[in-house]
């Protein structure tokens, strides 16, 4: 009983500090958090497999509100129920909350600081590399199964998002419906 309590505490602490650290580095929009979460919880801790991670991101996108919050929350929920979800939300909200509270007081000095903007410019290029790195790994996993349908969906969804700038809500609905129609297990397409 004691060790169980201890393990639970350890789980919550790991969830809290992992999301805290990750959130402090999600510069440039919600998607940036996905590769970081993937690296930590799929590859590092091995708590969630990649397929389930993608499912959780899909659910996060189907939920209104900031993607970064939703994705962390779902990982917390998956690992430790509603209490886990609250812990990861807290961990994710805290860094922007604290930083923004401080910045709001002297924001003009911050905005116009040359050193701050030079460092951030350098970081932005690395953020792009971090996302591309994970995309390469994930896309490879989609392609290596050698099934045509998922690859077609991936290409079409990329064109819809990147070229035609179509709202993600529509992309999600259409791909979900296509999946339900043509990609059910036993339909020949799926294992």
């Amino acid at each position, binding site marked *: 009983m004691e060790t169980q309590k201890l393990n639970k505490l350890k789980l919550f602490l790991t969830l809290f500090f992992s999301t805290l650290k990750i959130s402090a580095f999600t510069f440039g929009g919600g998607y940036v958090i996905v590769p970081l979460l993937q690296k930590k919880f799929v590859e590092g801790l091995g708590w969630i497999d990649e397929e389930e991670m993608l499912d959780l991101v899909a659910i996060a996108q189907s939920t209104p509100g900031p993607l970064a919050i939703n994705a962390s929350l779902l990982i917390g929920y998956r690992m430790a129920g509603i209490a886990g979800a609250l812990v990861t939300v807290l961990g994710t909200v805290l860094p922007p909350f604290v930083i923004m509270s401080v910045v709001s007081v002297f924001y003009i000095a911050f905005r116009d600081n040359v050193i701050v903007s030079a460092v*951030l410019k350098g970081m932005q290029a690395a953020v792009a590399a971090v996302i591309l790195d994970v995309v390469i790994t994930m896309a490879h996993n989609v392609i290596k199964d050698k099934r045509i349908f998922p690859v077609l969906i991936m290409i079409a969804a990329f064109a819809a998002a990147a070229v035609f700038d179509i709202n993600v809500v529509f992309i999600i609905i259409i791909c979900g419906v296509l999946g339900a129609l043509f990609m059910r297990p036993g339909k020949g397409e799926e294992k």
Partner: protein
Amino acid sequence: MIYVQMLLSFLQIGLFSFGGGYAALPLIDSQIVKLHGWLTMTEFTDVLTISQMTPGPIAINAATFVGMRIAGAAGALAATLGCILPSTVVAIVLAKIYYKYREMSVMKGVMNGLRPAVVAMIASAGLSIMIQALWADGVVSFAADKMDFIAAAIFIASLIVLRIFKPNQIIVMAAAGVIGGAAYLLL
């Protein structure tokens, strides 16, 4: 009273912004700038600029910023809480449905359709960040005066390091910030 107003305003922003940070912008604009006048248009633009420079979702940043400036720390807390409350509830409900029915064949089909789409959308977001980082005016061009070569070098170096050595990404980003920052200031 102001706290309740803020909570309610950001509750709406949190509830109706589907699909990433930029979806929240028109909602923040109509609620915060036009309806309540909590920010001027200039301040709103500043919030966007600062959001690009600080970690975290734009909606959370805006909530904290507006709350702090209008009603102090308690205001920031009320606004941020309003912003995350709807997604917390909806996400938990959806997760419950997912874990309850994930073995059903229709649910498996839906998820099989969504997974490659999610990869594509992450790729698309990555592409826009890359273009923004490498080309200041957002137009892809390989002319010497258009492309940011420091950013390009950092991008390629980071990608190689990430692919080969699989280090902690946060270390790569921090190193890029230090090296890149020094390069921009010195070169």
